[in-house]
């Protein structure tokens, strides 16, 4: 509740052009945007994120809502920008392949914790990119953006039940992928029904 009110205040100040409030918003959501774009296989997630933030800045004076509303609005914009980028970029597949190739050469986790985290994120995103587009979209919006089923369904243009199915299938497939890539352990067990499906 406190975070929600604090975020409302931040959003209100950001709407007036407060740089600190804008920075706070940006720091709270920028990495989510980048992960979303990377998980969708976009070649230049930073540029897309910048485009999203500019559109957010243009719409902030007319925006009203709390943190969840802002996040829903933010990822709605991100999804539209991604689609626009896909329509513009005729070479998306080729670039995606390039991204995948580069992902293979991503730094391996080392002793450094940051590198471990970065490596885990890269691997996770790599696995997500192997999912079908709808499943990846649903998983990213539900897991990364932490949107509700309804919001995800609204962004994707599907029903809530369809979103739940997509998320469930996506997570199960991720578990299978991770089990196959894991050196040991029970990899054949399908993931249980998680909180993201419900």
């Amino acid at each position, binding site marked *: 509740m406190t975070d929600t009110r604090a975020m409302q205040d931040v959003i209100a100040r950001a*709407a*007036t*052009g407060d*740089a600190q409030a*804008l*920075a706070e918003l*940006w*720091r709270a959501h*920028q*990495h989510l945007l*980048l*992960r979303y774009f990377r*998980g969708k296989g976009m070649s230049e997630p*930073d540029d897309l*994120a*910048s485009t999203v*933030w*500019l559109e*957010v*800045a*243009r719409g*902030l*004076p007319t925006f009203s809502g709390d943190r969840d509303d802002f996040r829903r609005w933010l990822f709605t914009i991100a999804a539209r920008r991604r689609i626009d980028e896909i329509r513009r970029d005729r070479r998306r597949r080729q670039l995606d392949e390039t991204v995948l190739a580069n992902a293979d050469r991503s730094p391996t986790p080392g002793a450094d914790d*940051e590198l471990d*985290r*970065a490596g*885990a*994120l890269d*691997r*996770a*995103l790599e*696995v*997500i990119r192997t999912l079908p587009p709808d499943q990846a979209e649903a998983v*990213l919006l539900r*897991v*990364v953006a*932490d949107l509700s089923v309804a919001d995800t369904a609204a962004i994707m243009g599907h029903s809530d039940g369809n979103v739940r199915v997509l998320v469930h299938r996506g*997570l199960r497939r*991720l*578990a*299978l992928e*991770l*089990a196959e890539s*894991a050196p*040991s*352990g*029970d*990899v*054949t*067990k*399908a*993931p*249980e029904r*998680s909180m*993201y499906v419900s």
Partner: protein
Amino acid sequence: VTGRDRTDALVEALRQPALPTELVGEAAAIASMVGTLTGAAAPRGVRSRKGAAIVAITAASLGVGGLAAAGPEIFPRVLDFGRAALPEQVQPDIASESAPPAVSPPDAVISNPSNPAMPAAPGVVAGRAHAAQPADPGVSPAVPADPETAGPPAHEDDDLTTATSCVGDAHDDVVVAAAQTTEEDADPVPEVARPDCGNAVTAGPPDSTPGNDDPGAPTEAVRPSAVQPVGGPDPSTGTKSVTTPIEPQQPQSPEPGGPETTPPASTPPASTPPTSTSPVPPTPGNPSAPASPPVTLPTPPASPPMTLPAPLAPAAPGVPVVPAGSGAPDRAANSTERRASARPAASVATESGWSAVASEDLVEPGPGARLSTP
């Protein structure tokens, strides 16, 4: 490690806090966002400035275009009034306009034969216009045509009634010189411009149109002040009504309330060159002030020159007078109507001043005579 654990690890990896590499470029992003937010008014300001510039350019274009379009009509009148007026008054076809059989007097009052489109200007210089007229019978120079002081304008045919038979350019020059002079001791223009010029003037009805067709029968004093019923000096303008009695035998006084021109088909005698062929309606406003002293006629330099009546221009000596009903009556009527519709009343006063020389001996009409012009 179960599958759920793997999934949880994956979800945890996806939902981990932001890495430092993901927050690169924060300053630039924030700056662009702040610029987008605070610079929202800038585009409106730019649009406002552009709009103002567009409005200014449009207004300037319209103004320049309007002046350019109206320049040929306005500038010659303002800057070169006299020269612009001369070509119109020497049109040869206007000679036939001088003999309209019946000219509506009220129309004639407001008509200006010299330049129909020319507005009345105070202080019309008559001399310049007359200088170009070879057969100018008489000149009433420089009559201030102040609309307020000029009184009711004389009728249209005043300029046409200068049926004096002053033949010869020398006389015209003298008259013009007298009209243009500003010396106080100069001969009065009415004296100089006495229409008989030593020639026998054929008697004719002074105010009637045929009498006016008679070149030797000038009938009116048409100076602005002379048009006034009193006929005395105009205290406002300082000018006096001048009547140049051409013939004392012109007893016919203008009918008050509107002259009815009944043009008899009288032709001027051969001895008198017909200079004016237009019918002259009665001039009730002509105060026949025979005893009035010669008038010192100011000639404002900036005032537009009074123009001769169109019929007088081509009416060279020897040109037969086109009697009423003969010649080109239609054209004459049309031209009369045209002039009557276009001329302001103030400009008529100048014409009356011009024709006043030729009609000195008119009987001073009543106050309401021919002054029905508003």
